[in-house]
């Protein structure tokens, strides 16, 4: 069953058409990769899905609900979490604290109880334990107490994934998670994303240029160019699609 369904979505900025009648669906429990040249509109779509941008036309349905009617601060409540292409972490906080900022949004203690410090201790212990577990899954636990500032780019990307996971999402959107990683690190990350998907019964939407990872972990690939979909299908079909090779993959595919 489709968890996310994007129908005929268009976005315009002034005279620029960033997305042009884009349609695709993501089935529950699958990993869907979104690929395409720089400027094709992949991140724009992410921003539509997380309600940072307004779609000019079209409809988006998430779990049967009209997503375009949900305000951006309620996206996390629906179970959607994302990472950003240009990292959005707090450099002065430690790795663990950064991950816990994610957990806070899903905390069960309301404002009043938090203000009165009722049940905060156990809640915080729970979040701390959960955050540690997530860090372990992404092989980041040895860095838990280091401040984020000054850590290498590829590590920061993984910390962002950890923070998104701390929201306990059903639907995870990853924007170029493999950027800045070596091949073996990419393999590890790919394996981690797959196992996290299985263990947390997640659905994943992924924007990525690292083809080895896309081909290895995704069930379904959507290819975009100039704001439109140019191909859609399983990875082995996409890799041999002449239109995709011409617009995106080039000789090395």
């Amino acid at each position, binding site marked *: 069953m489709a968890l996310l369904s994007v129908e005929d979505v268009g976005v315009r900025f002034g005279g620029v058409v960033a997305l042009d009648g884009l349609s695709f669906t993501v089935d529950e429990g699958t990993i869907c990769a979104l690929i395409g040249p720089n400027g094709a509109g992949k991140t724009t779509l992410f921003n539509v899905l997380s309600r940072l941008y307004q779609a000019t036309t079209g409809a988006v349905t998430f779990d049967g609900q009209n997503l375009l009617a949900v305000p951006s601060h309620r996206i996390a409540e629906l179970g959607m979490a994302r990472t950003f292409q*240009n990292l959005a972490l707090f450099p002065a906080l430690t790795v663990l604290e950064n991950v816990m900022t994610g957990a806070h949004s899903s905390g069960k203690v309301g404002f009043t109880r938090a203000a009165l410090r009722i049940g905060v201790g156990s809640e915080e212990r729970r979040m701390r334990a959960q955050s540690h577990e997530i860090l372990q899954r992404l092989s980041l636990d040895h860095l838990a107490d280091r401040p984020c500032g000054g850590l290498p780019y590829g590590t920061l990307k993984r910390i962002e994934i950890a923070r998104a996971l701390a929201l306990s999402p059903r639907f995870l959107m990853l924007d170029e998670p493999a950027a800045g990683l070596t091949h073996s690190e990419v393999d590890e990350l790919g394996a981690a994303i797959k196992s996290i998907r299985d263990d947390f019964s997640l659905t994943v939407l992924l924007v990525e240029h690292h083809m080895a990872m896309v081909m290895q972990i995704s069930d379904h690939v959507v290819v975009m160019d100039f704001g439109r979909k140019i191909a859609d299908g399983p990875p082995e079909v996409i890799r041999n699609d002449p239109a995709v090779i011409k617009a995106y993959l080039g000789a090395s595919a």
Partner: protein
Amino acid sequence: MALFLSQLFIGIGNGVVYASVALALVLIFRTTGILNFAQGEMALFSTYITWKFTDHGMPVVLAIILSMAISFIGGMIIERVLIRPVESASPLTIVIVTLGMFLAINSLAQLIFGTGEKQLPSPFPSHRYHVLGTTLTAQTIGLVAVLAVECLVLYILFQRTKMGLAFRAVANNVESSRLVGINSGLMLMLGWGMAAALGALAGAMVVPTQPALVPSSMQSVLVLSFAAAALGGFDSPLGAVVGGLVVGVADAMTHQYIDGLDQIELVVPFALILLVLLFRPNGLFGKTVVERV
């Protein structure tokens, strides 16, 4: 109508001064991200220097030019000695440093020049012209002309010279400017120097419109200029000019037409700052950061 026009002219005359000081604030904010609370007192000190020269019989225009040159060097020294060491400190630290400078420079001015009233001659002739039933002074025309020249010079400097380009590069990305070989430290010093020189000019413009030069001469000017810069957007030179004129005219008009306000000083600028911060925190011409994704 005549009353309205005369208030308009007064407002524009004052607004020009606020615009000049706001330009200096913007200049420093753009390059260093610092709100220089000492800008007014730096201008005060410069104005005392101008006064000292005229007191020794120097023609006022020459005194202003000399004072601007001295202020330019003084501004560079302030950047190098006081600001550079805290450059990478927290914004709060920097605010405290500029507030400290505010008090220190004011005290220093009192110590050196005394607290008595000084008379600074106006650089403009005292002609008056009758326009549409009201008087327009040469002073007002002169002030507008000075601001226009100031804007033109700054525009040419920033948009048409190699140094201006380097300056804008430092304002945009310090690290990258160093990587292309720009001495960013020197650029920051020049920025403070120019801001100080603009302050000297603004001080020499505004003080002759006041009863006398006293140690508190620039304080309300600073508040009004902050309002102007906040209104226009702290990173926009155009905003500073428009903001200055709007604040000047709004101040003059409200005091004329709204009863009771003439007794309360500075209500207009504070109200404007509050409104801008509430509804348009980046100012009218300020840049809302839009990132391509």
